[in-house]
């Protein structure tokens, strides 16, 4: 048996359509079988509600008198891009306020607009013959704008890798607060309720189909940026009229230490045309697998600790390195259900009909990393290879002599086999002179928790280590913990003095 999109739309119009939310589909298939479910169910509604950083809106403000070409503009002190004609602009969700820091950003401007609030527009220009005015400041409500069109380059990820942190300090990431020592795990997405997992072959979700977006009727434009269906990470580019949206499904947020982002509600209504669509919409959380990524590694390709399913994640606890770790969703499953339920109501009331894609989304794309044409400097290239070291059982006096002779403030401390076990600074030695009771050997005064770097680490990351830990030198170690160099703030200066050649 097969159903046509027309027959489903007929049923929507005459009110006889049978719609269910995607979370109920597995049970229906279990009860009625695939053919039975195909006869019974016409439309499956999906939903997700979570942080979608790649979101924003185009505005047209209308012309002032005398007219002005808005070359640089700010909405509540959040800069919008004005390089499109005179009074058009794009405001991105993650753009940060110039006055209120990370607690207010583009996402907050969007929420303020949608909630009916007043937003201050400030714009400047150099002035031209056709646009003589040089600046303007005015208060605007959403209804004052000619257009406010949400265009989100990347929304509704098919699935998203979970996050944890193996380091010994708390990390503040776009995946939320990650406690040290794998103290917690965060994840994003609604799992089997989300739009794309219900149509992984992209048969019914594609360009031009109507969707739920931010509480209004929106549309899929096409593939989202970083669309990577070949690896199971498809995304959508979507649009909708901001003026129709509701703060119930569009919420600004701030990830502490990362910045502003927008929580967006997105849902698709999937027509059950044939048995294949029954199968794909019967997906369950335990069939959607993601990796648990260690955000403690400051690299693009962060190591995966294990793979988990959305069922594991939603259970609230996951085993990591032999221990039970609690999980936090960053998306709201409750809101995702509300998206799917609202969409269901729209279809049932005949307010929302189904359309097939006018163009199918690419199914083979694979997202690639950035091609970097300029080499990033590595620690190896600027480190000081003259290493003065002491062993832990030497006298503090020996360390003092070496510090003086080596004209350095830091000496790495080695054990008998030459491995790094500590660090001693001139400060430690001075303290030892005043408090001799602590002992007379290097091991009595050394710092044992040594922040270190490796020759292949990028200089940016090493510099961040210095800054974060408020220190001025890092021992450079090889894979066996042998000290092969030292990196100090002075070495970093070489980058600016032109001694490092790219």
């Amino acid at each position, binding site marked *: 048996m097969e159903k046509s999109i027309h027959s489903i739309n007929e049923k929507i119009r005459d009110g006889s359509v049978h719609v269910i939310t995607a979370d109920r589909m597995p049970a229906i298939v279990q009860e009625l079988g695939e053919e039975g479910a195909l006869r019974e169910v016409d439309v499956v509604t999906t939903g997700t*509600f*979570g*942080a979608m950083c790649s979101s924003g809106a185009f505005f047209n403000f209308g012309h002032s008198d005398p007219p002005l070409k808005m070359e640089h503009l700010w909405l509540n002190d959040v800069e919008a891009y004005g390089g499109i004609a005179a009074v058009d602009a794009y405001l991105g969700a993650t753009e940060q306020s110039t006055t209120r820091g990370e*607690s207010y950003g583009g996402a907050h401007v969007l929420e303020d607009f949608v909630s009916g609030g007043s937003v201050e527009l400030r714009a400047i220009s150099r002035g031209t013959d056709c646009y003589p005015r040089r600046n303007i400041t005015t208060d605007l409500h959403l209804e004052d704008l000619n257009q406010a069109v949400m265009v989100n380059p990347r929304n509704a990820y098919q699935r998203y890798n979970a996050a944890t942190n193996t380091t010994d300090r708390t990390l503040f990431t776009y995946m*939320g*607060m990650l*406690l040290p020592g794998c*103290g*917690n*795990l*965060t994840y994003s997405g609604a799992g089997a309720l989300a739009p794309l997992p219900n149509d992984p072959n992209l048969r019914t979700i594609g360009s031009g189909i109507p969707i739920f977006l931010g509480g209004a009727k929106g549309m899929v434009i096409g593939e989202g940026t970083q669309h990577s269906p070949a690896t199971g990470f498809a995304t959508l580019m979507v649009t909708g009229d901001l003026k129709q949206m509701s703060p119930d499904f569009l*919420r600004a*947020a*701030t*990830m*502490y230490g990362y910045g502003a*982002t927008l*929580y967006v509600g997105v849902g698709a209504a999937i027509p059950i045309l044939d048995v294949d669509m029954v199968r794909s919409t019967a997906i369950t959380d335990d069939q959607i697998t993601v990796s648990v990524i260690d955000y403690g590694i400051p690299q693009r390709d962060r190591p995966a600790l294990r793979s988990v399913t959305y069922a594991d994640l939603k259970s*609230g606890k996951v085993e990591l390195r032999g221990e039970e*770790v*609690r*999980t*936090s*969703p*960053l*998306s*709201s*499953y*409750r*809101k995702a*259900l509300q998206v799917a339920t609202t969409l269901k109501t729209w279809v049932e009331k005949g307010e929302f009909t189904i359309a097939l894609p006018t163009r199918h989304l690419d199914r083979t794309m694979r997202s690639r990393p950035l091609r970097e044409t300029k080499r990033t400097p590595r620690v190896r290239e600027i480190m000081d290879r003259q290493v003065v070291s002491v062993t832990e059982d030497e006298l503090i006096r020996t360390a003092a002599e070496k510090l003086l002779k080596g004209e350095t403030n830091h000496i790495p401390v080695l054990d008998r086999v030459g491995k790094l076990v500590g660090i001693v600074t001139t400060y430690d030695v001075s303290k030892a002179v005043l408090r001799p009771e602590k002992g007379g050997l290097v091991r009595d005064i050394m710092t044992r928790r040594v922040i270190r770097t490796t020759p292949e680490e990028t200089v940016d990351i090493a510099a961040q280590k210095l800054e974060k830990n408020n220190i001025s030198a890092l021992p450079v170690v090889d894979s066996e913990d042998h000290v092969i160099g030292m990196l100090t703030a002075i070495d970093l200066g070489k980058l600016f003095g032109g001694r490092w050649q790219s």
Partner: protein
Amino acid sequence: MKLLVTFSRKKMREPIIARVVKETGVLVCIDRAQIDSAAGEVLIDVPDKEATYISERMRAMGAQVRILENAIIRDENECVDCGACISICPREVFTFDEEWKLQVSEERCVLCRRCVLACPHHALSQQE
């Protein structure tokens, strides 16, 4: 019941908690303590029926004591029930009910403030 005990260390360097425990024989659990050279703030958990007695004894020794209620305030208008607070809380104050609505067991809170920072929607605040 949780009691927030504050005291100045300038006036007094008495080991008041130890002394009250010894005197009253009531075992108190110290949930959190912040003490520096000038002042101290200690959050203690005591059996409900002994709370008044303990408070009186501590006040007599010069400390200020108040019962900690509604330690964490959740703004229902801002909260979207995402659950970012759940895994970072050391005392499992936050849980989901069957409908994925966030539940707050504020009586377990020890005022660590992690959730206040971590809430993406600024929906959580701590009573001062």
